[in-house]
């Protein structure tokens, strides 16, 4: 069931109706049932996988809870007779005892993800390697990839680690836990909400409140608008450019950078808007996943504002533990002695950064494109960090510049193009083609000739009204986003009944009449849903 299908809309409306008519303490059960129906509709074979993940992480978390309680009781009883050192030793020992549950749960679930998502990639790599030695290689099996696996594995492992760290309470009721993992608006593409933020909300009663329904509903429409009017229409041109990397070069690649940014923004933030809006209509507040990312002035800032919940997952559960782990500390000491303080300080952090970005790339997809994409992001962040003293000097010389809006704009545009350029690795079929296409920007100036006359539209496969739809749509999104920095526009609108009703009407009309959906278009599913 794609978010933009009539079936999904009907399904969501029915769920909402039932949700608000059943007795309040049964509301979470309604959500659980619809979540499983939603997941089942994607294919019955996916269900066992998500169930195994739910069951395994639930059991491991309970194991950790049991150990925690035993140790807490012991400590409470004997605290007075123990010295500080004894207490420390006891705590360390306690940690060791609960660690197997954590390690077991993580290894098991990441193994599932690894096997299902990366077997084909690794094996074809192995085959290429064997081919060098003239060996025939192994056949690459085609495994099923359960829908949303990258997201639900992340959500459940984050829960397990949080329980281990004592940041959230382990859930005793498996049905309640299953809802947290499979909650249907978020199961396919996040946001990756943390258990302690989201889970309690499911089990408090929710009344149908106007503010929730109106603001949530408006946000759903807004999401559809971004997805169907902007992203899907621009996707036609993106496909056209990507399909002929040999002929559509130079100017077209620049255009691709801009258009694909529009696609990925409309598609992903639009999808998240639908998710968050729908949850909001149920009275639930999910974690925000975007904070005006294209206004970022640096790559680091961009990654704090784009796909926030994924970024914080990698920071909290990969980068932080990795950079202060014992081997890293050793590495740091060793390099400080041998290579000097500057390198010694940097080496572990830089290594951890690159590993984190390598994994981030890998998580996005099993292909070299994504790995290179991840590593490039990491490299850009590290390089700009090394350059920061230079920037500081520059700003000391021109102190007035830093606060000027124009300079901020320049930084934002620079970051936009930098991120957009790296992002086209998503589009082309492999890494060399991407680099070749990008290279053509610097020598193929003839392609700019196509800008004049009707040739451009024809080669992009767009009609004039579609270009206007993309341009106007983008402008509206930009204005709304810009204004929302001070106060969310959607909130403001939904507080005024007439404005709200008119906005909904206009959005519905624009989506239905000018949207890119149905036959005649290669109506794509949300990219972030199909890919994961």
């Amino acid at each position: 069931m794609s978010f933009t299908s009539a079936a999904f809309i009907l399904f969501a409306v029915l769920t909402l109706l039932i949700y608000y008519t059943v007795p309040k303490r049964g509301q979470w059960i309604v959500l659980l049932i619809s979540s499983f129906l939603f997941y089942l509709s994607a294919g019955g074979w996916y269900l066992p996988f998500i169930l195994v993940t739910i069951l395994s992480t639930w059991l491991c978390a309970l194991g950790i809870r049991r150990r925690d309680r035993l140790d807490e009781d012991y400590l409470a009883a004997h605290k007075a007779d123990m010295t500080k050192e004894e207490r420390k030793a006891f705590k360390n020992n306690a940690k060791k005892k609960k660690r197997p549950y954590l390690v077991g749960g993580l290894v098991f679930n990441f193994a599932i993800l690894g096997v299902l998502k990366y077997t084909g990639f690794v094996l074809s790599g192995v085959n290429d390697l064997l081919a060098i030695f003239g060996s025939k290689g192994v056949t690459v099996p085609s495994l099923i990839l359960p829908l949303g696996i990258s997201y639900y594995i992340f959500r459940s492992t984050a829960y397990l680690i949080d329980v281990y760290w004592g940041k959230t309470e382990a859930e005793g009721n498996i049905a309640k836990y299953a809802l947290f993992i499979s909650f249907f608006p978020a199961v396919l593409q996040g946001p990756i909400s943390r258990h302690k933020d989201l889970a309690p909300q499911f089990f408090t009663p929710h009344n149908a409140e106007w503010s929730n329904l109106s603001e949530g509903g408006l946000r759903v429409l807004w999401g559809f608008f971004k997805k169907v009017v902007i992203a899907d229409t621009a996707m036609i041109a993106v496909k056209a450019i990507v399909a002929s990397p040999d002929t559509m070069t130079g100017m077209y690649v620049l255009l691709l950078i801009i258009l694909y940014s529009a696609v990925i923004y409309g598609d992903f933030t639009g999808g998240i808007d639908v998710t968050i809006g729908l949850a909001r209509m149920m009275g639930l507040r999910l974690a925000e996943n975007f904070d005006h990312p294209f206004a970022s002035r640096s790559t680091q800032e961009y990654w704090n504002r784009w796909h926030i919940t994924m970024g914080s997952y990698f920071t909290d559960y990969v980068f932080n533990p990795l950079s202060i782990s014992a081997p890293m500390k050793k590495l740091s000491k060793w390099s400080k002695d041998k290579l000097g303080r500057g390198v010694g300080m940097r080496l572990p952090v830089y290594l951890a950064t690159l590993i984190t970005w390598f994994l981030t790339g890998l998580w996005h997809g099993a292909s070299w494109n994504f790995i290179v994409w991840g590593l490039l992001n990491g490299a850009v962040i590290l390089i700009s960090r090394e350059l920061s003293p230079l920037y500081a000097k520059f700003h000391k010389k021109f102190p007035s510049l830093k606060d000027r809006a124009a300079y901020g704009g320049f930084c934002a545009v620079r970051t936009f193009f930098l991120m957009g350029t790296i992002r086209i690795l998503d589009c082309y079929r492999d890494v060399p083609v991407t680099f070749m296409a990008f290279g053509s920007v610097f020598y193929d100036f003839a392609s700019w000739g196509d800008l004049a006359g009707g040739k451009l539209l024809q080669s992009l496969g767009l009609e004039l009204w579609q270009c206007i739809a993309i341009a106007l749509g983008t402008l509206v999104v930009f204005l709304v986003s810009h204004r929302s920095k001070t106060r969310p526009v959607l909130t403001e609108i939904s507080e005024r009944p007439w404005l709200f009703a008119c906005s909904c009407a206009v959005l519905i009309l624009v989506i239905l009449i000018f949207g890119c959906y149905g036959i005649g278009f290669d109506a794509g599913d949300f990219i972030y849903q199909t890919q994961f």
Partner: protein
Amino acid sequence: MKKTSRILAFLMAALFLCLAFTACGKKDGGADPFSFVYNDATVKIGDSEEEALKALGNWASYNLSESCGGFAGKDYIYYYKGFSVYTTPDRNGNIINMIELTSDEVAIPNGLTIGSSRKDVVKAMGSEGTAQGESLVYTSGTVKLTFILRDDSVTNIQYTSAV
């Protein structure tokens, strides 16, 4: 946990970096029978009619038909010596939807022609394919290659779309 995941991460990183150097070394297979080669021009099902005809040179004659229902565009069959090319309207002009070999003057890239035996076909194609009556059908990607056999001998070879 830290230890295990760390080791895993390092191992994976090492493995992938090794593979990075091999990923480009794609091997060149033998003659691909799923595209049609004539006059040094390679033509595939789904190619644009305009470019394909330019590459294949002049046809001897052709038939055309308007599609029922008054949709824009026409179906064409171009007759060459030894083969025919069928085209049908698509979004940006006509595309090739069938190539039919009609005599043994023309062979497909792996050498099979009309008159080849069933054994020749199985050997050259590397497998039995799927049988359809007496005929043998092979599919690769979006292309379907059909060998029509009568009394153990190929009487016709057709490229069609597998979608």
